[in-house]
């Protein structure tokens, strides 16, 4: 069900402050697109504008177009709730619902869509999603325990299971490994490589090796100075970005000569 996303002339605001300016980019289906760049350059903000999570913050708004397979996500008839059901998100810090069991966490999204499911079907879905997130073997005996009883890496995979349980078209990941140890990070990277067969994945990362390892396309965001809006400086196949980037700023950043 993976879909492509076309962004044109996107300006992203916090109140009157222009945070990200003039983004034009096409995100390919069934691939991983990585967004890199220094802190505060607007890559997370851009990511959150793709599933309309940006406007959750008071005063935040967006100008421009985001089109997913012909469907204008910011069109007059687009409902942000529907958009978020089609475009799943995994956050920087693992955030399973602490008041729900592991099972209920995975089932949460499906229950929201108010589809009445038979218990057996729901059991199937939970198992399938947890297997999809490579977590099933670790939690199958304690599905009724709280999600917060898991380790950080397991919690993050639980969040991925929760996001893919609703079969979204696109999966957004906002620095999903930055709070995890290297082994958990590896587990999640392997998982992403499996998931891209079914989903379009966009990942924000500070870890350039990670971007190089997992992604097909890489976008580099940068800003000229504090108070200036962030811009998408370069968007190219990952190999090209890391070997022979078009822009000098990109080369400076990836080779550590930044700033």
């Amino acid at each position: 069900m993976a879909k492509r996303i076309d962004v044109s002339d996107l300006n992203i605001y916090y109140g009157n402050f222009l945070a990200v300016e003039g983004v034009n980019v096409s995100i390919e289906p069934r691939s991983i697109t990585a967004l890199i760049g220094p802190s505060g350059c607007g890559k997370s903000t851009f990511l959150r504008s793709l599933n309309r999570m940006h406007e959750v913050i008071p005063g935040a708004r967006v100008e421009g177009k985001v089109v997913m397979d012909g469907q204008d996500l910011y069109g007059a008839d687009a409902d942000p709730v529907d958009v978020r059901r089609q475009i799943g998100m995994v956050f920087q810090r693992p955030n399973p619902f602490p008041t729900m069991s592991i099972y209920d966490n995975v089932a949460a999204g499906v229950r929201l869509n108010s589809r009445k499911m038979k218990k057996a079907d729901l059991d199937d879905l939970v198992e399938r999603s947890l297997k999809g997130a490579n977590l099933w073997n670790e939690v199958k005996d304690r599905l009724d325990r709280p999600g917060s009883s898991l380790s950080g890496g397991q919690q993050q995979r639980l969040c991925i299971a929760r996001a893919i349980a609703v079969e979204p078209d696109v999966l957004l990941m906002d620095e999903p490994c930055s709070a995890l140890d290297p082994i958990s990070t590896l587990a999640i990277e392997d998982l992403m490589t499996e998931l891209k067969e079914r989903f379009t994945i966009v990942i924000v990362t500070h870890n350039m090796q990670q971007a190089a390892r997992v992604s097909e396309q890489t976008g580099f965001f940068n800003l000229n100075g504090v108070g200036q809006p962030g811009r998408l400086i370069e968007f190219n196949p990952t190999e090209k970005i890391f070997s022979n980037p078009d822009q000098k700023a990109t080369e400076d950043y990836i080779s550590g000569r930044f700033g």
Partner: protein
Amino acid sequence: MTATRTPTEPGAAKPVRRPGDRIFAGSAKGAGILILVILAGVAAFLIAEALPALSAPSDDIPGGEGLAGYVLPLVFGTLLSAVIALVVATPLAVAIALFITHYAPRRLAQGLGYVVDLLAAIPSIVYGFWGIAWLAPKLVPFYQWLEDNFGFIPLFAGPTSSTGRTMLTAGLVLAIMILPIISAISREVFLQVPTLHKEAALALGATRWEMVKMAVLPYGKSGIIGGAMLGLGRALGETMAVALVLSVSGGITFNLISSGNPSTVAANIALEFPESSGIDVNTLIASGLALFVITLAVNMLARWIVNRRADFSGAN
């Protein structure tokens, strides 16, 4: 091997304790002990003073039906009025808190918060006057309507009191009095729900109400229960407002809108104490002891409810 000291060796160096730490630990411990001493003192006083009434022949107790016959209707009245207050106030208070924290525009929310807090600052005797002079007469037509249409339910059997000074009126006045306590505590808890959890719900495609159901209410549950118990404590012990509003005559009844109502423990003590002496005083104190035990039991019950699913509280 040279001699090495293991940490477990007796007489090994004690951990260094700084004076600041010691002073703070001592004063904190003192405060903790003080509260227990006060509680024990109150309990000892109540028990000692209630003893003569407990052992007195039933003819000597006011009413002539023994201590249980005297105290039970009061306990019943206390619980009934408090339960009415809680049932009315809790959903309303939670709704107010939700509106202030998640729905109202920021400016309005702040003003509304102050106004609700202000309700807590009104002395209870003012509530009593307001209840007797304004609310009770206004409620009479409503009670009549309840009797006409829902008279088959024992709660509204009537006959409707002509003054409106009924158990339901007392319960409603109490509800307004405990509203600010419950809503202030709920509000604080709702504000502490981590953005992370709320965004998790929103990112799954939850509407605002679904987000509240998934993330805010479960996280705030223990706070709501805690606030409700504080409110219940105030409703159980409230004296002046009930003493003024409630028209007392008769014993245990579930009829909420008639003129025959049992009194409450606290209101009864306030009304009877000035004219009591001897065994009558002991009887009143025994009723106070009953209230003390009830309040303790209610708090322990609430604690148990909150702890039952502590793993899922979100505090870890």
